[in-house]
């Protein structure tokens, strides 16, 4: 479960081949907004050749494809066979997901989707989107959203509170990831504020638009000492009682909670191995 998702433009070789050193848990290679119309072909081919030759290990790889045909189908057909962890679908709506599913079925493909939620209408079908087959996560796209709605973004500002909460709730209800929108300046203080709000609201991770943002995101979404302590206590009691159902501090603990505690400790260990927190 990734903490940080680093956007990488799909047409810059120097950035593609170095992307995995920046310690992001996931990469989103961008064939859409970072690429000018006349470069779409170049970017797609470069990304495909890169993934064929040097697909980075121990990092999730997503590709943000274009939302409209003919680019949409060409991107999908090119990326799907490459063993990526999923595509990021811009301007996701129920209708666009139906269209996506049809294309996949027509070409006998199956690729998970992270739905980029960046239009007002998507917010009123969020639960159905989240529960759509192959949906792996919801990603909040506040840039486009604020551009089209007139929202004025401030770091961690209330203008996004409703959208963030609603998206997070829909994702959790469907059991998929809630990923926060990137903060688009390199101001460290502003970034810290924006990260903090997303973290407190229950998001699982956040996007980065620059490698320098990644360490702060990784640190913030690393499980807290409090969470880890609690998880260790649960597992200890589980081992002592040799049971999946027991009482701890007057609360009933059952299987999902035990499994969640295990997963949390494992997640922390993986991040620690990566060098997230010494």
């Amino acid at each position, binding site marked *: 479960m990734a903490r940080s998702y680093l956007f990488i433009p799909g047409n810059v070789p120097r950035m593609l081949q170095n992307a995995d*050193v*920046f*310690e992001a848990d996931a990469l989103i290679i961008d064939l859409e907004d970072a690429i000018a119309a006349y470069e779409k072909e170049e970017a797609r081919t470069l990304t495909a050749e890169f993934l064929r030759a040097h697909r980075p290990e121990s990092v999730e790889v997503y590709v943000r494809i274009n939302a409209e045909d003919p680019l949409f189908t060409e991107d999908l057909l090119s990326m799907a066979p490459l063993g990526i962890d999923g595509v990021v679908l811009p301007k996701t709506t129920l209708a666009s997901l139906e269209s996506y599913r049809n294309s996949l079925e027509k070409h006998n493909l199956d690729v998970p989707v992270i739905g980029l939620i960046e239009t007002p209408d998507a917010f009123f079908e969020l639960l159905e989107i989240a529960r759509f087959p192959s949906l792996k996560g919801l990603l909040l796209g506040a840039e486009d959203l604020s551009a089209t709605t007139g929202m004025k973004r401030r770091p961690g500002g209330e203008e996004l509170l409703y959208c963030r909460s609603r998206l997070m709730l829909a994702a959790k209800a469907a059991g998929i990831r809630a990923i926060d929108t990137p903060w688009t300046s390199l101001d460290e203080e502003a970034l810290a504020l924006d990260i903090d709000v997303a973290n407190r609201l229950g998001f699982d991770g956040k996007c980065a638009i620059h*490698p320098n943002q990644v360490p702060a995101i990784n640190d913030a979404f690393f499980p807290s000492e409090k969470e880890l302590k609690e998880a260790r206590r649960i597992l200890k009691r589980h081992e002592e009682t040799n049971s999946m159902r027991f009482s701890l501090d007057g609360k009933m603990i059952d299987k999902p909670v035990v499994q969640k505690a295990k997963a949390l400790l494992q997640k922390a260990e993986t991040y620690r*191995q990566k*060098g997230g927190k010494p």
Partner: protein
Amino acid sequence: MKYENIDELLDALDLKDGMCVSFHHHLRNGDAILNVVMKKLHEHGLKRLHLMASALFPVHAPILPLIEEGTIETITTNYMNGPIAEHISARGLKGTLTMQTHGGRARSIAEGERVIDVAFIAAPAVDENMNASGVQGKSACGSLGYAIEDSLYAKRKVLVSDHVSPSLKDPQIDGRTIDDLLVVESLGDAAGIVSGTLKITQDPLGLKIAREALRLLKALDVFQEGVSFQSGAGGISLAITKGFTETLKARNLKASFFSGGITKYHVDALEEDLVDRLYDVQCFDAAAIDSLRKNEKHFAISASDYANPNNPDRVIKDLDVVILGASEIDTDFNVNVTTDSYGTIIGGSGGHADTAEDSKLSVIVSPLLKARTPLIRERVRTITTPGEHIDCLITERGIAINPKRSDLLEKLKDANLPLLTIEELMQKAHAFTGKPKPSAAGEKIGIVESRHGATLDNLYKKGD
């Protein structure tokens, strides 16, 4: 004697063909003196000169014709880049090129191995008694460390200055060691003499390497009260210096000294009381000069007191950590900072080989890949610093520890750092780049001299 006309000065000197003239490089790329003097020596009909300049920069390109036709036959230097370096790498010179280290140059002069006939010492400020300082005057450059041995041991010592002052505070050069003073209009271009403000790298790759370096230092328990530290002025080195001082602050520790080339980051640490002393052999920016002028515990030192291996009081004998760069490194940990992979001279040891040997821990920081040129080779093109003095290599894709340092490996056993053998790191690079064809070499043009005076390696022309 005092002169205001260079021809009069030269007429008074005992000039001979084949003699050795020396210059320091504290005026960096703003130097106007070396070119003027060499041109004048040429005009006075001298030939087959041995130029012993501690460094040569792009600003010195005008002496190329003198090298080509043999007025300058032999060159001994610690560092060179730009047109002169490119020319010599491609075409050689009439005599030999010897590349020394900062400490080795001082040693060879002090021990009489190298005899300087005339030392031309550019001095930003002088007084009537020919004392000299580097921190006053319009051409202020800071510490004059690389000029001190020249001022003590050359047969004839000439100060060149553009600023005569009634009084100098703490002159670094004692007028009693000086023979002549030449007063000129200007020593050079202030903008070229001193960098405005050196900035830490913003390149994410460089920052990642800096982060890994700090993690390694922490894992090796380097952060103790009284630790001593040195690093260069490159973007990654500065980022590490900044991280180093931030860690001291966070852990409530104070370092004993920082040495070498001094920058604003070193000065900030001194002024925040995170380090006790600065030992300055050269100032890299305006903040360093300013600090040398006013801070009591910021000391200008000579190259010998800095790094002469036979000087028992040299500062770097107590150095705990040094952070260094590399153009290439090989699987025996030999480091090249003298040439690129194709044989063009792009620098030289400077203090690299000195500090690597004397420091308790020497750390190389470098990207593993520079576009398609891998850092790690089976054998470096030129050995600047022998592998036995190199302890760690930090790249963005992993860290390699010299197998000779089993003590470090032991300490890092449970450290959760991306440790690999240097061969494994090389394979990682080759997985991206493919294996490069080794570069061809032309005829020998000179040598790399170790700080102790032995020949460490040969220098060759670029291949065809």
